[in-house]
């Protein structure tokens, strides 16, 4: 244990998965004085010698507040940074396949006309050969102008042909509707019009402005108009449900039955506990897996079947750690697994207008934990490269608790929940200072993955932005509307790239336009839901494991720390549940009365020097 004389500068350093934090202090006549706080990006995997650069940067950042230099630092207390490797995966449980076209998810802005039309699909020229009274639906591509298309339709109507509706390639539904003699429903913007089969029975429905379709969103409505039996009706039911809320829709009856929702063999996991093992079929959803793990906790290992998506996830993280430690894969154990249900939009193969369908999916987060050997080599490297005395100061969660205790209004006994990107770590300290801690997989990064997948972004960077930034809707050239409907006005006109769009309210009054067709309500609902789905069950299961007698009500105070405790809405979401359902006082920490939820472990490492 390094001895620090009066005025000697010493530091507490916390190497996290994404950030490295430092707290600087000195003894002044027997009184501990904090001199600085620093933060930097963690370099390399936490707990490995590559962290040295990150540590140096964090120290330099902390030294900025004082007039001392790196040479003045005589000792470093570092957390016992045990490498934790986490990984995520998302697999769909169901898949929607269409054998022929059935335009699900296509909802053009300006369909033409209104009403319901049932008939046989036909080309414009083909209508010339129709008998009077024949019910037809012309399919209009771009080889004729919309004027000519309207002329063809009028000619057919004059000849007594019962033109019931129209399916149009270009964005010209209204233009055609305004030039024909009969008011019929017209669905437009069908980009791959050649894939619409000719000679098939079809139904087209367009609702009046401001309303949604009522017949095609009802399986019995489709059955009535296309003459389907009970078996066929059950088959098209998922299609009808996915049309709910659309302003227009087209359903085509094809001999093969059109649409199938297939269950994908997602695989199963074998959860190995102390007394017994259990095989869980993941296609049943996340609930069963999470329950099984809770029943058997602490688990010894989880094994996935090769060739399955979940098996791949398990093997990936075991592989990473085995390479890191030069250990054989068979010696690596999964410490924790967390699962959550999700609904993801998937592009339908065989679609004609970029349609997508919603499919059930399961998101997984898994974690492996190394042993202490790694952090010892980090300590060696720090001594050599920084020329300071280095010692490992207690377990991470014990230090987090000590740091959290510097929050005004907090005393023992207390619990702390460290919400990071890769894991949620929770610990309790009783009146006598005894500590119990757990580490759970599934945290901030899992929330980002859910937002990315459930909104179909295919852009993890955008998903991260959406997670941490409040959003708004631009309403005019001079104002936008916040999530709570309050307006914000601007003195100068907004650029046209923001007009009518959902935007993210970045720091320093910057606006980031969201270049996706996602409504503000959908974005907010998905974002908040993702945070709840991951953090609430995970924090509850963590607290159950460490609370006296597995009773969360017995905990009196919880302090939230870590990167995710800085989120603009997450701490309130959590406090709300814990206060209302369990009566526990919960809130974001305020380390040293001024740092908020940051720097708890680093501060704890210094605070621990007062105790010893």
């Amino acid at each position, binding site marked *: 244990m390094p001895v620090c004389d009066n005025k000697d500068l010493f530091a507490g350093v916390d190497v996290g998965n994404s950030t490295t934090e430092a707290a600087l202090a000195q003894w002044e006549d027997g009184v501990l004085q904090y001199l600085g706080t620093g933060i930097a990006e963690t370099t390399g995997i936490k707990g490995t010698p590559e962290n040295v650069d990150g540590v140096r940067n964090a120290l330099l950042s902390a030294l900025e507040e004082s007039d001392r230099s790196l040479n003045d630092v005589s000792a470093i207390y570092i957390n016992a940074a045990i490498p934790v490797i986490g990984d995520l995966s998302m697999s769909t449980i169901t898949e929607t396949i269409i054998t022929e076209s059935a335009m699900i998810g296509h909802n053009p*802005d*300006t369909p033409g006309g209104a009403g319901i039309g049932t008939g046989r699909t036909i080309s414009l020229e083909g209508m010339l050969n129709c008998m009077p009274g024949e019910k037809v639906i012309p399919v209009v591509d771009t080889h004729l102008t*919309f004027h000519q298309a309207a002329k063809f339709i009028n000619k057919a109507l004059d000849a007594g042909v019962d033109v019931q509706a129209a399916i149009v390639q270009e*964005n*010209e*539904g*209204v*233009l055609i509707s*305004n030039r024909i003699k009969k008011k019929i429903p017209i669905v437009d913007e069908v980009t791959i019009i050649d894939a619409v089969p000719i000679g098939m029975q079809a139904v087209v429905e367009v609702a009046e*402005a401001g309303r949604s379709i009522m017949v095609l969103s009802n399986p019995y409505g489709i059955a009535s108009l296309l003459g389907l039996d009970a078996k066929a009706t059950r088959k098209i039911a998922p299609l009808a449900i996915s049309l709910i809320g659309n302003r227009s829709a087209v359903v085509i009856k094809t001999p093969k039955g059109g649409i199938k929702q297939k269950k994908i063999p997602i695989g199963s996991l074998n959860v190995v506990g102390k007394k017994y093992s259990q095989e869980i079929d993941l296609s049943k959803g996340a609930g069963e897996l999470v329950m099984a793990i809770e029943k058997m906790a602490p688990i010894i290992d989880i094994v996935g079947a090769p060739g399955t998506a979940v098996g791949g996830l398990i093997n990936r993280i075991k592989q990473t750690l085995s390479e890191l430690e030069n250990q054989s894969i068979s010696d690596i154990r999964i410490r924790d697994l967390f699962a959550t249900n999700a609904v993801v939009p998937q592009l339908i193969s065989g679609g004609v207008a970029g349609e997508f369908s919603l499919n059930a999916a399961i998101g997984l987060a898994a974690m492996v934990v190394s042993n202490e050997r790694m952090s010892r080599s980090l300590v060696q490297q720090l001594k050599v490269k920084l020329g300071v005395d280095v010692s490992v100061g207690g377990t991470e969660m014990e230090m987090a608790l000590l740091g959290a205790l510097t929050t005004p209004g907090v005393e023992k006994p207390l619990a702390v929940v460290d919400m990071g990107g890769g894991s949620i770590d929770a610990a309790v300290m009783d009146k006598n200072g005894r500590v119990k801690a757990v580490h759970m997989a599934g945290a901030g990064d899992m929330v980002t993955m859910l937002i990315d997948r459930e909104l179909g972004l295919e852009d993890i960077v955008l998903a991260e932005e959406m997670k941490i930034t409040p959003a708004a809707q631009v*309403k*005019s*050239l*001079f104002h936008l509307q916040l999530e709570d409907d309050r307006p914000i006005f601007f003195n100068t*006109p907004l650029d*046209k790239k923001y*007009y*009518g*769009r959902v935007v993210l309210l970045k720091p320093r009054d910057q606006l980031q336009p969201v270049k996706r067709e996602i409504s503000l309500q959908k974005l907010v609902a998905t974002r908040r839901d993702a945070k709840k789905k991951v953090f609430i069950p995970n924090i509850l299961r963590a607290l159950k494991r460490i609370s006296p007698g597995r009773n969360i009500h017995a905990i009196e105070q919880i302090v939230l720390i870590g990167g995710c405790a800085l989120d603009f809405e997450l701490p309130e979401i959590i406090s709300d549940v814990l206060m209302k359902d369990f009566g526990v006082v919960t809130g974001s920490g305020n380390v040293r009365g001024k740092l908020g939820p940051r720097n708890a472990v680093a501060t704890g490492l210094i605070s621990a020097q007062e105790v010893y």
Partner: protein
Amino acid sequence: MREKKSKIYDFVGIVICTKKNLMGYANVKEILYGIEEEEVPFEVWQKGLKTEDIVSAAHAAAIRSIFNVGVCCSKDAIVIHHSKLEKRNPLFYLSGDQCTRKNARYAGNNAARLVKGLRLKTMKKHER
């Protein structure tokens, strides 16, 4: 499409102005089709463009529109303006190879979407 004359504004709709002898010009028609497809009323102001200054004319058209949106089209340029914007800073100024028929149609869509508060369509260069 003139439904009624409002006291303050002249036209209940987007106002488009152009030179009288350009009314038959393809781009003007495409703009009108674009607005019609979005189901927003519009009015053609026959005497609107007296000089070569299409930006000012578009702004004057916007002022006469109850929706504050004005469009001006000449042989090789299209301007979409809003009465609350500075006269010299229109929302859109398309010229040269941006003035394709497709872009003229989108310009009509966008003038209407400006009224409806919807996000605007991108008008790329050289779009055939």
